[in-house]
């Protein structure tokens, strides 16, 4: 299973974290520190797997962003690379040629998309189209609610004038 997902920029800035196994706050910080040190220093042509504390970390760099997933020893590394790619394509489809800035400002969206893709450390939706549809469905729910909220706050704001 996937134990956690990390998105780290080339400068070592964390862009997204998601933990599927229990890690305390302290451990999380430590894990990120260790892994960024390990992964960011690796050359471009080296292989995309790192052995780490009895696990394997599969990472791939897209532009300036490293996508890392930590898996068990006997999980299929290539499959995870494909999952990472799948996630990136899904993001791409959602944001329209995604870049790091998109993920910085829409941190929570990237998070929701990941939630549709993976559950309890397992891949749960192999279709990009359906993920996009689900996210769109949620967005429309939120939009509707926002409009409603805005109208209410407008009313109140006017009332207090």
């Amino acid at each position, binding site marked *: *299973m996937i134990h956690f997902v990390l998105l780290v920029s080339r400068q070592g800035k*964390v*862009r*997204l*974290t998601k933990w*599927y196994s*229990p890690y*305390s*706050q302290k451990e*999380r*910080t430590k894990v990120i520190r260790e892994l960024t040190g390990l992964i960011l220093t690796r*050359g471009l*042509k*080296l*292989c*995309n*797997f*790192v*052995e780490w504390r009895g696990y394997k970390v599969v990472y791939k760099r897209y532009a300036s962003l490293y996508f890392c997933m930590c898996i*068990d020893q*006997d999980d*299929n*590394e*290539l*499959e995870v*690379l*494909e999952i990472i790619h799948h996630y990136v394509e899904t993001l791409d489809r959602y944001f329209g040629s995604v870049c790091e800035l998109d993920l*910085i*400002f829409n*941190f*929570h969206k990237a*998070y*929701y998309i990941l*939630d549709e893709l993976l*559950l*309890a450390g*397992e*891949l*749960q*939706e*192999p*279709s990009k189209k*359906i993920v996009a549809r*689900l996210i769109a*469905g*949620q967005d429309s*729910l*939120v939009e509707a*609610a*926002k409009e*409603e*909220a805005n109208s209410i*706050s407008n009313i*109140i*704001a006017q009332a*207090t004038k």
Partner: protein
Amino acid sequence: MSGPSIMETLFQRTLEDLIKGIRLQLIGESAFISKAMEEIRKEIKSTDLQTKSIALQKLSYLNSLYFVDMSWAAFHCIECMSSSRFSLKRIGYVAVSQSFDEQTPVLLLITNQLRKDLGSVNEFEAGLALDCLANIATVDLARDLTPEVFTLLGSSKIPVRKKAIGVILRVFEKYPEAVRVCFKRLVENLDSPDSRILSAVVGVFCELASRDPRSYLPLAPEFYRVLVDSKNNWVLIKILKIFTKLAAIEPRVAKRIVEPVCDHMRRTGAKSLMFECIRTVVSSLSEYEIALKLAVSKIRELLVDEDANIKYLGLHALSIIAPKHLWVVLDNQEIVIKSLIDADANIQSESLRLVMAVISRSNVVDISHVLLSYGHKSDPDFCNEIIGSILSACSHNLYEIVMDFDWYVSLLGEMSRIPHCQKGEEIENQLIDIGMRVRDARLELIRVGRSLLIDPALLGNPYLYRILCAAAWVCGEYVEFSTNPPELVEALLQPRTSMLPPLIRAVYLQSVLKILTFCMYSHLQKQSSISFPSSHNLEGVMAECVSRRKTRESSDILTSAQDDVFNPMISENILCEEDIPVETKGENLFFEKNRFSQESIVNLLNAIESALEPLLGTLEVEILERARNVLGLIDLIKQQIPNHLSPEEESFSREASEVWKLIRSMNDAFCEELGPVSFTAQEKIQLPEGLVLEENLRELDSIYGILQPPLNFLPQREERVEELPDSEWRSRDDLEPSNESTSLLVEHRKRHGLYYLPSGVSNDYPLANDPRSGEHDYDENEDLIRLAAQSLAPKKKPNYSKPRPVVVRLEEGEATSHIVSKKPNSKYDLLSGVVQDVLQETNPMESSQKGKEKVSSDVPPGSKENLQDLVDPMGERSGSGKSKHRSHGKERGHKIPKKNDREKDENCERARQKGSHRLGRKKTRQRAEGQTDLHAHTPGQIPDLLL
């Protein structure tokens, strides 16, 4: 109240504002975050849910990326989560799944909210609740929400059902009894025509089967159908993983899947699926020639691939097959060796593992030398990895593959001198272990130990201290093999030993004591056995005079005390030598060259004395005590020696007898050979009555707490000293040259110029291990490949000049206790127990046997030994292995009662339900039953379909 709340709503920073603010970095990141946190703390208390939710969203952002603590906001999370508006609810759920854990106090409050949302008609809300449950499920939540999850397993909305399937994994983990409710419906989903459902459910079974494959054997027909029918690579990969596990324990499954697996391997273009097929074949289907041949050819394709990932996986596949079919590795040896010099550290260590897999008695010498010479040139990490793997390969099973211990011991010496060798502790252990176990290697040990001890440059490298410690111990313990004991003493007392940590220095001093005792003993024994001196001639006197003068010239250490020392009868009298009864071990070895003349003994005594006297002022207890011991002994000897050296030889035996007695008893004490200690030795000692070992010693904490500060004081000094890098060592030396040590140093330098740099500043030592400049790296790498390729090829006739020496081996228990069984997890055992129950419900005949099996797993920890005896290599994989693991699980439960309390309780409860009436029976009988039952009922589990 509503006033400020509205103001807050209007002017609240949104998440986007926060992100922009952090990126602007006007006041620095941490300052900005703490300011934002202040705002959030205020806003989150707002009565307006909108304001609260935005604050919470910002908080979870900061928590996720900047690791700000958010456990204090648990209650606010719940408030947002129970909002009826989806946008707020979603923020709440994200915050909850991010920050809640088992310890969160308000966890109990969310059960109802979760239940409500799980039952919601809105598929997104149900999805949120399922996502959340997957993250934070606890035992209570899993138990209380099992009915809802069960309902959703049959939901008509595919996304919801899919998520419910995913969540099941967590629910089972936390609350195994849920299996009774949900398992059937989960299995039904395997038949689902929807590929997404199938993918989710296969994922769950893959995870479950990886923990305990045996329980899922009955489902093999369903899995088989998926294997044949599915077109989705990701699903196939998971199914193959399941079958890898199943085929390993059930040969009939293996036979059945060979054909489809080969089909997939031939047809697929996807590397991931291809690799999974290969992995399945090499791990579980290697007996089937067709499959193996196909897999091997595919592995070769992987190995020659340009892509580093593929190559790495190819090597990985090789290392899986290596134990079973070594020829596959040998066929590809060229690639393996070349990978040793790959730029990628992963590929390097994978190929190192492979090289270590082919190591055997016939090629260990060549491989080790090639690897070490390569290690010299590679980077420190990999060099240490090489050293570590050579050490562990050679020491495996009591140095099984080592034929020539002289070679191995000198190899250890060579390793110690490699730059940045950090395996000091392991080398230390092996030096001592070989000393104790292999009698024939002791001579070489002494030789290697001597060369390590005598080199002053090595004392500057803190990594070597442990090795030097072992060398010192070996030299003291087996001094009788030494050709020149006084030289050892000199090496042990050389001035730069002051750089050693106190505890290691103490070992040095102890060795000095042993050597001294030995020298004195040999000396006195020789004297007492000499029949007599009347015939003693002028020649002897002359020789003595000459030698004495010579010593005087060469050595300033001699004090006036020995001026009257004169012993005419010690001379090269061959007769004497032959008269000496050989009592101590190996004594005759050195007598030819070294005869412990009176002169040399006195020199020795004086040298020791002058080196140890400065130590009497030391603060380190260990050193002080040992130095005093040695000096005390020397005092005693000195009082006696001048007397018995007087020309009247009659008085000799009488007067010297006291020293003689003393030395003899000390020598007797040191002569006692130290042997290896069995790992089970402790268990053999009967527990004295009234001694309570299991009692909690926590009361001692308070006492220990008081004692701690002074205890810490000394070691701290030591650590600090050890951490100093080489350069500082030198500068320290330069800064504080204490008077006596400089004079000693000059002295030592004068006599052992060989080991010091010929010119330059007197205090400037060479670094212990100067990394060599690798000039002709490339050419040497070529050499490496050629050489290694030769040595890897299995030699047909290794010719050994001598037979393998005896290695002292204790009883079987020693070797087997090394084997660390996999960490068992009682939780999973519990889970698989229930799964087996559920699967067997259709077959009432077997449920009674089930009970017996359960009992077998509850054998009390005390009988572990017996269990291990039963475990043969074959059984490891089948029934007995499993029952062993279970009993381990129980043990663990006992050890950490607090953490596993609940599990244990459940476990006990189950055991009671299942077979308490059988507990009274004899253990052995239970075990036997457990085993036979397992073998008896597993065939029944496989439906005929597969056969």
